[in-house]
């Protein structure tokens, strides 16, 4: 047991620093992906409510495709496809070889998938807001954008938050897929450590515990945000939106 713990120490003999740097990359990737996914998801939900048939159709197809294709496949398509596309563009100007940044490729792929799921959540939340809220806003002379910003959006956040919190936990776990495109995240660094030390069970268990730790810390943060978003609802029965994930 002592020599196993020795393997987790900092410095040239231990793997503690490598694994922690991997964990930090995992957290950074998830944090960088979140705003992309949420913003795109919100736009998808708006498109779903649009009068333009093209936008509605686009939103439907986007969400079906990105929720139906395996995450791993998506990451490969974005990574290798982006590589080819970039190569094609750059080759018209110079001969220098280009390489797609794996972090950016992972961020785009995970962001698009996250957007498809959060789009469904926002759509369900929009549907849960009674139309009287829109009408009331219009009746007191607010412009459409103001109704959205002042009346609808605060309610939307409260309704969507529990499901979005779930998606955040899914996102943390999904970051593990980027280890397949040689990005040095927590899982890949662990694999490197296993390759050298030949202690797979111990190291992968440590990695799992670190992922669990991230979930636990997130859960604490999430319940704080939920309390904040529901401060107007104290003492009232709350309506929650649970968005069906894939069907």
């Amino acid at each position: 047991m002592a020599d196993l713990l020795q393997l987790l120490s900092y410095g040239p003999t231990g793997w503690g620093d490598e694994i922690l740097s991997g964990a930090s990359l995992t957290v950074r990737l998830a944090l960088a992906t979140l705003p992309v996914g949420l913003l795109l998801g919100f736009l998808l939900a708006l498109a779903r409510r649009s009068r333009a048939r093209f936008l509605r159709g686009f939103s439907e197809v986007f969400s079906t495709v990105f929720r139906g294709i395996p995450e791993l496949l998506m990451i490969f398509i974005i990574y290798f496809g982006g590589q080819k596309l970039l190569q094609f563009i750059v080759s018209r100007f110079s001969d220098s070889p280009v390489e797609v940044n794996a972090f950016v490729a992972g961020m785009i792929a995970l962001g698009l998938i996250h957007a498809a799921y959060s789009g469904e959540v926002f759509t369900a939340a929009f549907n849960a807001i009674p139309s009287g809220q829109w009408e009331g806003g219009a009746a007191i002379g607010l412009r459409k954008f103001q109704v959205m910003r002042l009346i609808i959006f605060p309610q939307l956040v409260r309704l969507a938050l529990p499901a979005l919190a779930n998606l955040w936990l899914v996102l943390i776990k999904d970051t593990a897929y980027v280890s397949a495109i040689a990005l040095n995240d927590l899982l890949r660094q662990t694999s490197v450590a296993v390759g050298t030390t030949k202690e797979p069970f111990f190291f992968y268990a440590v990695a799992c515990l670190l992922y669990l730790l991230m979930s636990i810390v997130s859960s604490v943060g999430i319940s704080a945000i939920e309390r904040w978003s529901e401060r107007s609802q104290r003492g009232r029965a709350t309506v929650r939106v649970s968005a069906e994930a894939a069907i």
Partner: protein
Amino acid sequence: MIPDLLVRHGARLLHGLLITLELVAISGVIGALLAIPLTIGRLSKNRFVSALAFGYVYFFRGTPLLAQLFLVYYGVGEFAGQYAPQLKAMGLWVYLRDAFYYAVLAFALNTAAYQAEIFRGAISSVARGQWEAALSLGLHRLPLLWKVIAPQAAIVALRPLGNELILLIKASAIASIVTVLDLMGETRLAFSRSYDLSIYFYAAILYLVMVEVIRRLWNAMDRRLTRHLRRESRPTPTEAAGLVPVIE
């Protein structure tokens, strides 16, 4: 007519598809069987048992499936390697040599946790009065569960179970990372030989088709399970004769 790429790799892709279906079906069924004791554990009044089941579910839902697969594939492999002679004697070595069975094990353990949560939620959603009424009618435990609780819980559990199956199909792509030649594995192999990106799009279409088939199947099952909750859309003879006004 058929693109050259499909002529060369099509058959292997279809074989990979078959492996993917096999992988999902076997691990899904084993997962469902494992989920039953887990659900009982989660609902148990014994604090120790329910904490144990909770810990299992929390671990498998809180960590990435890929990490779990590595834990099983390399970790169990490590232990199996130490006992190779004994395992060979028992005839189990065949299973431990093939990455496919490690993938089945990892996926089954993982989906069991998710399915147990679905079962637990569905059973808890059945109103308490249903239990009490059945008990007061003198039903024994098994008929009570099977005839009263299960049909009502199934309605609640069906859609989340369909979701879980879809997630499992998508997640099964990671088996390719531990050398299983499932649909994703064959696709990666074909890509490394042809360096033609469109092979990934063909794979994407196959995955989308699988998901769509399940979605439709589940819609049909949902309609069947909830048939008693819908108002009959066909008019009854009296309505058809115009004797009763049809209320929409």
